[in-house]
């Protein structure tokens, strides 16, 4: 019964999204910090692959029992843990613009920062609203 609460509705899905955005934020921040470091190659993970992994796990869960546990499958870049995840980032970008090996694209990096932040915030707010509704039902009070 208690497990059902933890896995209810879209909570496990939103949880994974929040974790992903949180981890990716650290990646992006490190890219920004090393913007001028010679020889540093900016790294990132593929957001699209992660969303596909999530989609597959969602479909699988719908097939079994709609409020069952979400079991996402690891990929090369995203490793799922019980209460978090580990990202293995790869260097991005093929262009070598500067001869010190760094490929600087500040505007795109800042855009990534903002987009990722919005994903984090949307997922976290939705997560909170889901939990609020469950709390309402438990307390029998709005």
């Amino acid at each position, binding site marked *: 019964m208690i497990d059902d609460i933890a896995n209810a509705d879209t909570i496990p899905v*939103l949880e994974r999204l929040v974790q992903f955005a949180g981890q990716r934020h650290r990646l992006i921040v490190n890219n920004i910090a090393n913007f001028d470091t010679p020889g540093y190659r900016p790294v990132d993970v593929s957001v699209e692959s992660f*969303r596909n992994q999530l989609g597959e796990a969602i479909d699988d869960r719908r097939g079994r029992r709609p409020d069952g546990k979400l079991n996402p499958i690891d990929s090369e870049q995203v490793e799922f843990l019980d209460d978090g995840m580990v990202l293995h980032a790869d260097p991005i970008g093929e262009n070598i613009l500067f001869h010190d090996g760094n490929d600087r694209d500040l505007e795109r990096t800042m855009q990534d920062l903002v987009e990722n932040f919005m994903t984090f915030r949307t997922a976290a707010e939705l997560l909170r609203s889901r939990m609020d509704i469950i709390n309402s*039902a438990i307390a029998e009070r*709005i």
Partner: protein
Amino acid sequence: MTDPLGLIGSIDRQLPPLPGMAGRPQDGPGFKQALNEQIAKVNELQRDAREAIEDLASGRRNDIESVLIATQKADTAFKLLLQVRNKVVDAYDEVKQMRV
């Protein structure tokens, strides 16, 4: 034991109409059925919202605003139902305490 009103007996048996009320038309669908319909509607709204969130998370759709609106509708409907349910339970408690 006399039973002039015919009240003692099977609870499934329809009560005979009280004197003076014989001409009243039959009631509509009934409260229980109406409540069940509303529960089903809230369930459907919640399911739609849930699918919308899952599609948003997996990248199958990217219109955040529609998902947020669907979620809000479902949640408001749920809260309304919760309040109605509370009122019904309160009314039942009150009736239960009536001394006959």
